[in-house]
C-alpha cells in the first residue's frame, strides 16, 4: 500500500478588529480588540486552482481596491413595488454584519414584503497589498459607525457585531441566496472568507478597523 505524506504549504487567514473613539484620530487607544480565525470560501480555493490549471490568461479573481464599496450603509431599493438592488450593488470589500437594520430591498414578489439588510461596509483607508512577506495578502479598511438615515431607517445606534465577510460583488436584491429558502442575503457573489464574531459591539461614532490577513505558508 502506498502512503503519501504530502508536504503542505497551507493558506491560513485571520482577522484583527479594533474599535476606536472617533476623536482618537491616531488610533492609539483601542476601545476593543479581537482576533479571529476565518473560514476560507470555496470560491477562493477554486479560483486559484482553476488558474493553476490554465494555459493562458491573467488571473481575474483578485480583490483589489478598485471596486470597493463607497457606501457604509447599503441603502434601499428605489422602487416600492419591485425588487431592486442596493447602492452598494456589485461593490467589493469587507462587510460587517450587525444586529441593526442598515437597509432594505423589496423581495421579488411585492406581496412578500422586504428583506431587511444588516450590513455595514468599511469604506475608508482601504488597502490591499502584500504583508510582511510576499506569500501574505493583507486587506485593511475602516469606517465610522455614525448616525444617519436611510429612508425611514435611523442608523448608527449601539449594536452587536455578528459576522465579518470579505469578497467581491456585493449583491442583495431581495432574493435569497441559492439553496437557502429562509432568505439569507447573498452578500458577495465572489466570496473570499468569513468569520463569526462574538462579544464585539459598536457604539455610535465608533470607528471600526479591520485587517484581514491570508497567508500561503
Amino acid at each position, binding site marked *: 500500500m502506498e502512503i503519501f505524506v504530502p508536504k503542505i504549504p497551507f493558506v491560513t487567514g485571520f482577522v484583527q478588529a479594533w474599535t476606536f473613539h472617533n476623536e482618537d484620530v491616531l488610533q492609539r487607544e483601542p476601545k476593543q480588540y479581537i482576533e479571529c*480565525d476565518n473560514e476560507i470560501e470555496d470560491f477562493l480555493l477554486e479560483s486559484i486552482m482553476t488558474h493553476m*490549471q490554465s494555459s493562458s490568461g491573467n488571473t481575474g479573481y483578485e480583490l483589489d481596491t478598485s471596486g470597493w464599496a463607497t457606501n457604509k450603509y447599503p441603502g434601499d431599493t428605489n422602487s416600492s413595488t419591485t425588487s431592486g438592488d442596493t447602492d452598494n450593488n456589485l461593490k467589493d470589500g469587507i462587510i460587517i454584519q450587525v444586529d441593526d437594520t442598515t437597509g432594505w430591498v423589496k423581495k421579488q414578489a411585492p406581496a412578500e414584503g422586504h428583506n431587511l439588510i444588516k450590513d455595514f461596509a468599511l469604506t475608508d483607508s482601504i488597502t490591499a497589498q502584500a504583508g510582511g512577506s510576499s506569500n501574505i495578502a493583507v486587506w485593511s479598511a475602516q469606517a465610522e459607525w455614525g448616525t444617519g438615515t436611510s429612508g425611514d431607517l435611523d442608523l448608527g445606534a449601539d449594536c452587536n457585531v455578528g459576522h465579518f465577510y470579505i469578497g467581491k460583488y456585493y449583491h442583495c436584491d431581495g432574493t435569497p441566496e441559492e439553496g437557502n429558502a429562509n432568505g439569507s442575503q447573498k452578500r458577495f457573489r465572489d466570496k473570499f472568507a468569513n468569520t463569526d464574531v462574538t462579544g464585539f459591539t459598536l457604539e455610535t461614532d465608533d470607528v471600526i478597523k479591520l485587517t484581514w490577513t491570508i497567508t*500561503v505558508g
Partner: protein
Amino acid sequence: MKDAIRPSGKVEVQVIKKDGTVINHSGHNTIHAELKTEMAQSMFSAQGNFGIANSLFDDDTFTTTIPDNESGIIIKDTNDVQYQMATTGTDLSSDTSFTVRGEVRNDSSASITIAEAYLGHDTASGNFGVQYSTYDFDVDGSGDQAVADGDQLNITWQITIDDS
C-alpha cells in the same frame, strides 16, 4: 471550519525496465516559494499567467534541451544535468486538483541516475519562471533512481488544494 487552503503535492514514480519489471515508489514534494508568492499576490492584484498547462514539454527522448517558454516536469541527474519530460495533463478539470504526467525513455547506451524532479511554469534558460514544487527521489529512502538503456521513467504529479 475551513480555515486553511491546503495545496499539497504527491509524486508517483514508475520505472518500466527493459525486461518488463516495474518499479514504483512515491512520496511528498516540496512546494516552492515562487508558487506561494503567486498564489498570495493573485488574491489582491491581477497576476500574469502562471498556469501549468502553458505549452507543455513534448520530448520524451531524454534530451538535455530545455526549450524556453514551456512548462511541465524537468528531471535532473546526479551530475546536475537537466532533461525535459514529455508532459501531459491527465486531469486539468477538477475544482480542487490537477494531475500532470511526465514520460521519458532512455535509448542511450548509458544508465542515467535521476536525483530530482521539478514542476513549473514557463522556462527561460533552463529555469522556471514560476516553480511549483520539487521532488527528491530519495525522499522515501529508496535512493536516486537509475534509468538504464531501454528503461522508461514515468512521473505522475498531483497538486491538490484541500479545505481541511
